[in-house]
């Protein structure tokens, strides 16, 4: 079973990370193109039309190669994750269906006008189509992120023991959950940073090669300030996201911070290195070495109170601490017992129903309802199963924050030099830094998802279903086979995209 779960997760992660190579550029570059075309619309300056068309072409290549890759994830739901699909399909399916019907068609309709309509529709109509494409793409992301947020914080539903499905009873609670709102804005604005980095990096490369330098510099003049806006909003929404994690997913926060033993007035680890997890758990070593902390910051950022107690991994395992709502936290062992009661009560309820025994039906239903909040814990074999991969979560979080923030400096410097007319084309090191900031932006973006998804393990749905219960009873060999097929397919498609993209970039504006 362990091997099956591991390969199924690896396949899903591979597909999601591959899909995420295309999405940020679509969302980020889309807005930049919209701004550039708006300038063209207002100034009637043909240079801006040329610039818009160049970036639109790269947008189109990225869109074409990336389109529908997300559907492969849905194939996997039906085959590799069928228990999960059944258990929450009623909720998870709704946002995905809305995404498919509304956003995708909105996007697909107006993208045709964007590419075919330059000389066929009015300038105003074309500009509207461009902005509606951007709006459609962002709306598309909204529904996907609502679905993801629900998995991190299940809300607005009730469990139906007859169908064995969670059924949505409050659409707005699902759509407007605080996790969803923060996740949407944090993700979309971080995509603006990726789009800005791509625009700045490609423009810098054209300047280095002495190709269309004037148009490249005009592009930077738009992308760099847009990148500043993107990163500032990403930081703001990132704080909101981390605050929600502190309230709803304390184990993820503990892993992000390498916090094994909770404390009041908890500091935030700015920089640090983790000792091996097993040694920390055996109390042989301290969790961190060479760490630089920001005093009180974790308590303040997590709970808006410098004196707040932030539970560590050991506290969450042992329980017994007072939570923010005044209740005493249960130990993981207690939750596991309650989860087992709930699962077995569900099974007995079904048997009693088949036998027509209403007394046992009611009795088991009450047990199930009383323990449903801990349903997923019943599948765990060991209390330590609730600890995610701490080092991966810890380092991915630091990578995201440190290198993500570095973009603020880069964009600020470029904006300053652009608007002060300082000839930055002389500074080759700066230009090459911009070029290499493109892969860095992608790595930062991917590490954000690693924090979100690895940090919430073992849960596929927080507290209700671990990955070990969500996976289908298929053979691990079949999952390994499709994993290898995806590796080959994705590599070929990525090579195709990059070669077409590089060819277009070399042509210049």
């Amino acid at each position, binding site marked *: 079973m362990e091997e099956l779960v591991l390969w199924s997760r690896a396949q899903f992660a591979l597909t999601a990370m591959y899909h995420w190579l295309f999405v940020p550029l679509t969302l980020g570059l889309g807005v930049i193109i919209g701004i550039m075309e708006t300038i063209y619309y207002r100034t009637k300056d043909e240079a801006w039309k040329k610039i818009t068309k160049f970036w639109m072409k790269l947008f189109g290549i990225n869109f074409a190669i990336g389109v529908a890759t997300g559907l492969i994830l849905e194939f996997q739901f039906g085959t590799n994750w069928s228990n999960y699909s059944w258990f929450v399909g009623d909720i998870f399916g709704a946002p995905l269906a809305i995404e498919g019907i509304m956003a995708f068609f909105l996007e697909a309709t107006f993208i045709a006008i964007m590419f075919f309509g330059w000389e066929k529709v009015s300038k105003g109509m074309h500009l509207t189509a461009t902005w509606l494409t951007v709006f459609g793409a962002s709306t598309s992301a909204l529904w996907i992120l609502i679905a993801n947020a629900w998995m991190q914080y299940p809300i607005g539903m009730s469990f139906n023991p007859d169908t064995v499905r969670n059924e949505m009873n409050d659409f707005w609670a699902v759509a407007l959950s605080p996790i969803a709102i923060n996740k949407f804005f944090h993700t979309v604005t971080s995509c603006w940073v990726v789009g800005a980095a791509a625009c700045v990096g490609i423009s810098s490369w054209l300047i280095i090669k002495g190709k269309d330098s004037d148009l490249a510099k005009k592009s930077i003049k738009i992308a760099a300030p847009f990148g500043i806006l993107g990163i500032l909003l990403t930081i703001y929404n990132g704080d909101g996201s981390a605050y929600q994690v502190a309230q709803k997913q304390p184990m993820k926060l503990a892993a992000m911070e390498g916090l094994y033993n909770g404390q009041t007035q908890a500091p935030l680890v700015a920089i640090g290195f983790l000792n091996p997890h097993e040694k920390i758990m055996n109390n042989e070593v301290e969790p961190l070495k060479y760490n630089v902390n920001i005093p009180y910051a974790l308590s303040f950022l997590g709970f808006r109170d410098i004196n707040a107690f932030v539970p560590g991994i050991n506290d969450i395992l042992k329980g017994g601490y007072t939570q923010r709502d005044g209740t005493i936290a249960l130990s993981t062992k207690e939750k596991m017992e309650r989860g087992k009661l709930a*699962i077995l009560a569900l099974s007995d309820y079904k048997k009693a129903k088949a036998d027509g025994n209403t007394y046992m039906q009611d009795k088991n239903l009450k047990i199930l309802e009383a323990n449903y909040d801990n349903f997923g814990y019943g599948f765990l074999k060991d209390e330590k199963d609730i600890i995610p991969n701490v080092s991966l979560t810890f380092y991915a979080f630091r990578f995201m924050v440190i290198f993500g923030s570095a973009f603020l400096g880069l964009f600020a410097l470029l904006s300053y030099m652009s608007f002060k007319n300082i000839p930055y084309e002389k500074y080759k090191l700066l230009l090459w830094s911009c070029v290499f900031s493109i892969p860095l932006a992608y790595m930062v973006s991917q590490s954000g998802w690693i924090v979100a998804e690895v940090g919430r393990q073992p849960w596929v749905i927080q507290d209700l279903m671990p990955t070990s219960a969500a996976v289908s009873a298929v053979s691990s060999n079949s999952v390994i086979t499709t994993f290898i097929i995806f590796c080959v397919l994705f590599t070929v498609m990525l090579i195709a995209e990059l070669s077409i993209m590089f060819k277009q970039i070399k042509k210049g504006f």
Partner: protein
Amino acid sequence: MNVLKKIWRFYYQGFKSMTLGKTLWAIILIKLFIMFAILKVFFFPNFLSSKGDSPIEKADYIVEEMEKRVNN
């Protein structure tokens, strides 16, 4: 009718005058073929459909699986 004709002509001329777009469409179609005609058909069947036809049978299977995974 006139509007429909205009829309048809818009798309027809748009597709006809594509240069790079033709390559991109070829990639999209190949990708969709691989996804739906090969991967979906041969590698990604609906797993639960093999366990029962009705929703009740599928729900019963899920409960059995859950019980098994608690005990194993």
